[in-house]
């Protein structure tokens, strides 16, 4: 394929990835920002979202759209509740000690993953997209007889992929409004600034933490529900989202929501774009190394304050 269209396609793909990644990473970042702990089980909450989506759609049957909308609402809710419970039962009891939390959530990771294996099984299952028409895309070129439009071979996307991008943006605006405009958002930001003071002002910090942990997981699950019609639900699918969200959160600057969003788009896109220039595995290698190096020479991330 010619370079131009190839690049455009890669960027389109990157954008879809970035959208899902943004939601997932946002969850991780929220948890880190407010609670100052790293949730290693985050990827498994993502996986649960996907698995639940499959389960809900296959239980409901009927037209794809109905099941999908149901999944879009129910799956994040259930995952959020589960995470909240986990926080209440485990993290609260180890008083959110950063290192112990990491170990505990590694444990949680295995528990969720293995219970899924025992119940849902080892196979990958697809979820039918509510709609999915192939859209061929045009390309413009300055030919000998002026500016002309043509339809390059293979340059296309699907209506659903576009929907994913839109849905992600809508969710982002929602989260932003929640944080910036509502009382709960105010409380969250207060807790983020200084949990002791917040406590002193009568904010039930423990409950807030459970809520935040739940919200974080729910965001991951939401991202997963959006992605299952493109990929499939599988009990090992949590690893990559976890790694990528980690990267995004760090690059974006721990706890900085704005940074997280920018970084997610950056990472998602670069993954697509780098793949244009290198063989796939080499691309992955370089991308990983690149991020590691960014961290080494700018530990506070690209957008984070030195303090982070």
């Amino acid at each position: 394929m010619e370079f131009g269209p190839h690049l455009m396609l890669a960027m389109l793909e990157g954008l879809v990835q970035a959208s899902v990644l943004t939601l997932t990473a946002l969850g991780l970042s929220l948890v880190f920002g407010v609670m100052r702990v790293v949730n290693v089980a985050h990827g498994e909450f993502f996986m649960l979202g996907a698995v639940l989506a499959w389960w809900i759609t296959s239980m409901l049957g009927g037209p794809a759209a109905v099941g999908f909308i149901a999944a879009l609402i129910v799956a994040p809710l259930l995952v959020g509740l589960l995470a909240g419970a986990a926080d209440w039962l485990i993290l609260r009891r180890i008083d959110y000690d950063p290192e112990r939390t990491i170990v505990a959530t590694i444990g949680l990771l295995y528990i969720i993953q293995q219970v899924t294996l025992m119940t849902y099984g080892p196979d990958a299952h697809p979820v039918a997209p509510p709609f999915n028409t192939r859209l061929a895309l045009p390309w413009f070129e300055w030919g000998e007889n002026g500016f002309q439009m043509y339809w390059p071979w293979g340059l296309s996307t699907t209506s659903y992929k576009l929907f994913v991008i839109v849905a992600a943006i809508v969710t982002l605006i929602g989260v932003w409004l929640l944080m910036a405009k509502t009382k709960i958002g105010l409380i969250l930001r207060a807790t983020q600034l200084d949990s002791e003071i917040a406590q002193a002002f009568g904010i039930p910090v423990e409950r807030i933490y459970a809520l935040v942990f739940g919200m974080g997981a729910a965001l991951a699950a939401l991202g997963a529900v959006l992605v299952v019609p493109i990929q499939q639900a599988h009990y090992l699918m949590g690893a990559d989202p976890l790694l990528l969200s980690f990267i995004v959160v760090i690059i974006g600057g721990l706890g900085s929501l704005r940074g997280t969003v920018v970084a997610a788009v950056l990472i998602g896109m670069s993954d697509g774009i780098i793949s244009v220039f290198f063989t796939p595995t080499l691309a992955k290698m370089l991308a990983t190394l690149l991020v590691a190096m960014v961290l080494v020479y700018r530990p506070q991330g690209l957008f984070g304050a030195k303090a982070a």
Partner: protein
Amino acid sequence: MVNKALPTRRKILTGMAAVGAATALPDVTRFAHAGSHSAPIKIGFQVHRTGIGAAYGRWYERTTNAAAKVINDAGGINGRPIEIVAEDDGTDPKRGAEVLEKFANQHGCDIAYGTLFSHVVIGSAPRAAELKMPYFVVSEGHHVASGMLNRYTLQPGITDVKSQVQAMAPWVASNLGKKITMIYPDFAFGHNHRDFFSEAIEAQGGEVVAKIAIPPTEASFTKYFPKIPRDTEVIYHVMVGPSVLTFVKELGEFFGPSAPAIFGFVDSLEAVDFATPGLEFLEGTHFWEGMPRYVQPNQTEYDKFYRAAIGIDENGASVDDPKDVSTYAHMFGCWETLFTIKDGMEAAGYKGIEDRTKLIEAVEAITDMPESNEHPQGAKLFNGKTHQVFGPQYISKVEGGKLMVKHTTSLEDGFYPDEVDYTTQSF
């Protein structure tokens, strides 16, 4: 929370457990006449219950238990029942080796058998040799015939990838096209396809115009497809792992109406239902099959028997859950291996672990395996020198969402010069 929601899945799991129990504790009375020898022959079964290979492992286990039941119902081996001692290897080489030690030293198994993924086989094989325990693998890897392993490791149930791939080349070149783009996973299994097929297709006057290796953990593929050259006549795809379905879907979405000929290894869709939405575009494309998943018009009695024994319907899915599609193109290897072990043990007059080397020699002596209930996939030729079996391969076309066999390769298509002679190695 989830398990309540998955009755069918649970039924299968418990169902499997039941079969497992049935074979694990054979009805001893039936063997009472055999007197002192009625103690069971223990076969250690290394199975991918967890990890990336679990989807295959589940079906390997069902097939194995079914075959064991057939063997026991027919009076076992040398008048003794066989007992399958299954241990999960987690699809991990280290655990695989540990499991072999467990078979040999704790369970007191006579032999070890099973497992698909090459890295587990290669990680375990050295231990098998050190434990002097015969190790029958069902991995379709070239590692056995390549001479990398040892005299205790044999693959008598399934043709290796080198032979499979080589057998495809003539038909592909003469029926689909000569300019080929290969898409394969960027690890050893994929590299085998890349190397062996490139070689074979060039021998047919064709050429591989592009080789696209996909990193193992990849979950979205569209961004790689632009690397497919315009003049490609055939796309050759072989993917494994949980994201295979995405791969095939996105391939379809990428090309839309104007796709080149597509030839795939059914590995890309093992355990996946062809009726899945998004796979329509595969209609009319071709696949390699180790054994035809869908019942063919000319179905043999042997295939009928085999399906019935495991509980598989005419679409290659579980009879108790038509959505639960089997890994039909590979799992026959377990069935046939067990029967080859039976033949070997009977030929060797196998009594106990002191006869292990006799067993290996007996199996090495086997050549022809006629098509039968024991070998439902087709007549095979076993090469005792390379410890590798050679069987027919099937090329099927997707018609009406079903795979219909168009061509069956001859054994000769898959032959290649020996790369090792294990029989010259001492025990």
